[in-house]
């Protein structure tokens, strides 16, 4: 009797399980699922009805209740799995409807860049900062005193002719301002207001009345100046060799110092480096040709005196070089005039990313 009753109970619960399972399987939307869930598990749902019914009858309670409870547990898990499946399918369907063609191009973004002159000037500042040099500045519109006289260009001397000077129209007193022909007046301005020891570089715009493939009426120079009580030509050579090495990022610099003449230095020299052409650029440190790279020398005693210092007590050296030319050499831009043409194709090609910060730890460029 008991056994029969039990078997009946099992068969009946099994049939119920099959029946509910079939209904669950046949569902494929979330709303049907919710309806079924309520129909089965709701307060007035089928499972609860069975449980209540079994609970009312002591005999059935023994045979049915454990089976029904087990069924409930099992179905709960199956419903949860079904819900997961349905939700996942629903999300897939939703996402499928949101599909776009990711191969379409993005909205155009301008790529900005920094001019090679800016890059090279920053490189110069970094290299010389490491040797204790600060960056000094001065005005582009200069007077004769700072651009020539204080720099020991005698009035009426042919050396003034070599400068192709731009003049402003004379003022009421007949004085003519000039556009500085070199960055050397910054030497004078610095020496007049600062006490030695002095170590500066002075990059900036300079102007000469000349225009062809390698000359533009405006270009850039960087001046260097050291004044103290012992700086001599050996230091000058050391500083410049270190600079060339750092700037061209090579240990193999072969350089020579050739005597030359500048009114504001004595002795004066020009520095040549060995190089070879590689593609559009030059490789410094190899090859067989000499290339003039800068002019330099010991600051002329008259210049020191013109700035109110005693040339027997203070001494030092100075040099000047073309920033644009350094940029052309290092980065292989062939025509100087392009530097000032603002052609965005050129700027993008020869320009530099704003993320690049020249420094000696990560390299200059």
């Amino acid at each position, binding site marked *: 009797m008991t056994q029969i009753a039990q078997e009946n109970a099992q068969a009946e619960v099994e049939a119920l399980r099959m029946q509910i399972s079939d209904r669950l399987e046949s569902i494929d939307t979330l709303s049907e699922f919710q309806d079924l869930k309520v129909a089965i598990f709701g307060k007035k749902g089928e499972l609860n009805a069975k449980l209540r019914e079994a609970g009312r009858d002591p005999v059935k309670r023994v045979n049915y209740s454990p089976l029904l409870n087990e069924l409930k547990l099992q179905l709960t898990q199956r419903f949860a799995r079904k819900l997961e499946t349905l939700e996942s399918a629903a999300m897939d369907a939703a996402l499928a409807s949101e599909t776009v063609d990711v191969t379409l191009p993005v909205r155009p973004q301008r790529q900005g860049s920094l001019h090679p002159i800016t890059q090279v000037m920053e490189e110069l500042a970094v290299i010389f900062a490491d040797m204790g040099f600060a960056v000094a500045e001065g005005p582009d519109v200069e007077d004769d005193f700072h651009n020539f006289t204080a720099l020991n260009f005698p009035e009426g001397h042919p050396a003034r002719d070599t400068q192709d000077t731009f003049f402003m*129209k004379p003022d009421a007193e007949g004085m003519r301002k000039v556009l500085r022909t070199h960055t050397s007046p910054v030497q004078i301005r610095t020496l007049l207001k600062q006490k030695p020891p002095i170590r500066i570089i002075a990059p900036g715009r300079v102007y000469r009345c000349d225009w062809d493939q390698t000359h533009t009426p405006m270009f850039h120079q960087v001046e260097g100046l050291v004044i103290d009580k012992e700086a001599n030509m050996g230091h000058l050579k050391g500083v410049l060799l270190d600079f060339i090495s750092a700037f061209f990022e090579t240990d193999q610099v072969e350089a020579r110092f050739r005597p030359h003449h500048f009114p504001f230095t004595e002795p004066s020299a020009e520095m040549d480096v060995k190089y070879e052409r590689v593609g559009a650029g030059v490789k410094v440190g190899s090859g067989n040709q000499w290339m003039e790279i800068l002019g330099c020398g010991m600051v002329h005693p008259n210049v020191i005196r013109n700035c109110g210092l005693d040339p027997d007590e203070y001494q030092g050296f100075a040099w000047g070089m073309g920033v644009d030319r350094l940029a052309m050499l290092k980065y292989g831009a062939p025509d100087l005039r392009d530097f000032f*043409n603002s052609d965005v194709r050129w700027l993008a090609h020869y320009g530099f990313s704003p993320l690049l910060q020249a420094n000696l730890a990560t390299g200059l460029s």
Partner: protein
Amino acid sequence: MKFPLSWLKYHLETDATLDELAKAMTMAGLEIEDIDNPAEKFADFSVAYVQEAVQHPDADRLRVCTVETKDGIKQIVCGAPNARTGMRAVFAPLGTYIPGLDFALDKKPRKIRGVESHGMMCSAKELELGEDHDGIIDLEGDWEVGTPAVTALGQDDPVIDFEVTPNRPDWLGVRGIARDLAATGIGTLKDVPVGEIEGTFDSPVTIELDWPEACPVFMGRMIRGVKNVESPDWLKKALTAIGLRPINALADITNLISYDRCRPLHVYDAAKLEGGVIRARKGRGEADTFEALDNKDYAPGESMCVIADDARCLGLGGVMGGTYSGCSEGTTDVFIESAWFDPLITRATAKATGIDSDAKYRFERGVDPESCREGIEYATRLILEICGGEASHVVIAGEAPAKPADIEFPVTEVKRLTGLDLPREEIIRILATLGFEPKGEGDVLTVGVPSWRMDCSLKADLVEEVARIHGFNHLNATSLKRLPGRFEAPATVMQLRARYARRALAGRGYSEAVTWSFAEKSQAALFGGHGEGLELDNPISSELDVMRPTALIHLLTAMQSNADRGQADAALFEVGPVYLTDAPDGQRLVATGVLPIHADRHWAGSRQPDVFDIKADVEAVLNAAGAPVASLQTVAEARDWWHPGRSGVMRLGPKNVIAEFGEIHPRVLKALDIDGRVLAFEIVLDNIPQPKKSNGLKARTPLEKAELTPVRRDFAFLVDKSVAADALIRAAKGADKAMITGVSVFDTYEGQGVPDGQVSIGLEVTLQPRDKTLTDEEIDVIAKKIVDKAIKATGGSLRG
């Protein structure tokens, strides 16, 4: 300055090779510009012997030659009419570059009408050694096969061209070059006396010096009975080598001496002189009008030194003679001038007249004042040798200017300035071989300076001489390390500002340009005009004749140029100077940018930039450059080259304008030929106030982080359209500075529901409670303050 090697060797005894001499010149400061070395240029060409020349079987005009060459017997087909058996010719092997034809022979033998030809025999023109192209070179002399062609042709003299620095006029004479080279130890300076000719009669022409500052010394001499013949070959060859055209013996002799000794001379046809006196005096303007040797008329004024006789002006002293008294082929009596002219007056005269001449080039740099005697004797000897005649005694007027003063020279100066540790004896040796006279026993020498070295007056000048000749290659390179105790970063605030501004702009898509500091006056006028005193006297072009008051001019035109090239959306910026006055502080560093109002079509829709894009760029730059952006006031007061309704300035206080931005006025764009509309900005980096001096500490103040949730409230105000939204925002912000942490505009509206002439502005105000949550009552109190403040400040009302 050019000279052939043989000329140098006339003064310098040396076994050095051309390369060694060139290197020694370079390292002594005589910078080589070019060496024309025929031996190198024509290295492939050599003497060959034509064993047999027979008629080509298939061509009347060709000959088939059997030629003995440095490479063995060759068969060469030759078209020259003069090719003949037994001649010596110039042979070019296969593959040789032929300069006169500007092509290279094939590397493989070519068949000419069926006969192979293994090279070429050249004409003078093919070697660029002459014009003769009628036949191949038929060498005179018994030259051995294989001898370099240039040797057989007597054309093997290399010509050296170098840069003469303005301080060394003595290098404008070959002897001066030889002297410096001798000092380097590469050879010895030969004694080449110019000879001294005793005169046989008194010169009938005498000299008077009326202006000794311009011409302090003048020697002259008459030579009677000369024949102004064609110069001998050696003289013509020497002049041709340095690029001068031989004229006649008298002219050529003065040219030779000018280049040999840097001693310009002038020779007058004595028959043309009137009155028996030649004088150096000030010019008299129109009365002195004369035709110079350049065939132009000049009327020298009183700032110029002329040479004149009683009748007329004969020439400009030290610059150029006149045609009237010049020598011709018929000249028989001559008067030689060997004078010294002041460099500054010479230069001023040359500048005023525009005359360039070898004499002027030398006198303006400074000719040796003691060389008058040497020059006149040298000229006399050569004239007598070449032209014959009889010389007078020399007449001398005036005195040579004093030579440079002695220099007291402590030998330790060499080490002090160069670091070179040279023995006293070596210092003395170098100075002496250069012609200086070092005297004295101790460590302080008294150094006499030679008359041709007027550039030397200081100790440093002597240091240069010693170091230059000893060799700069011996300088001991010594690195400089940072000075001890200086840890401050060397970059200044301004430099960093410029740097950050550049990076901010490049990061926002602008390309950095560098444009001219000059601009065109009429274009500058569109932007308020150029500053006083900033118009160029000698602009490089009329389009660049003033200093720019703004970089906008070039950026706008560059933008248009880019558009013309198909780059319609070029956004450009420049961080560079603009010029307000000609004073040292009249220059400003300005970040300027242009952005075309343009958007390429895009499948997802495109949006053209507007004023608020450019304003965002400006704020980004200001933030990057460290400006107090929150304290800046924006007002619609941009100047008249900006769009009157779409532009503004950002300023600190009522006066300090830091930035100007907006659309450029269409009138300005039209004047500059710019298509479309353009947004732009100018940020005066100099006007950003300096940051407060820090106490040196980098530590920041502690962060105050409110724990309580912020409260947001919306308000809509009706205000007159003339009211700036900024005024409303500021009023709202000011209502409770402690509590209000943000005010944003979420809406502006005009139209239906809003009275004419008014606009509705919706503000979202954020309140940040600090210690405790705000009650509704507390919020209402603050809200009322906001409304009151806003109404008071704007005259508006709360929208119902």
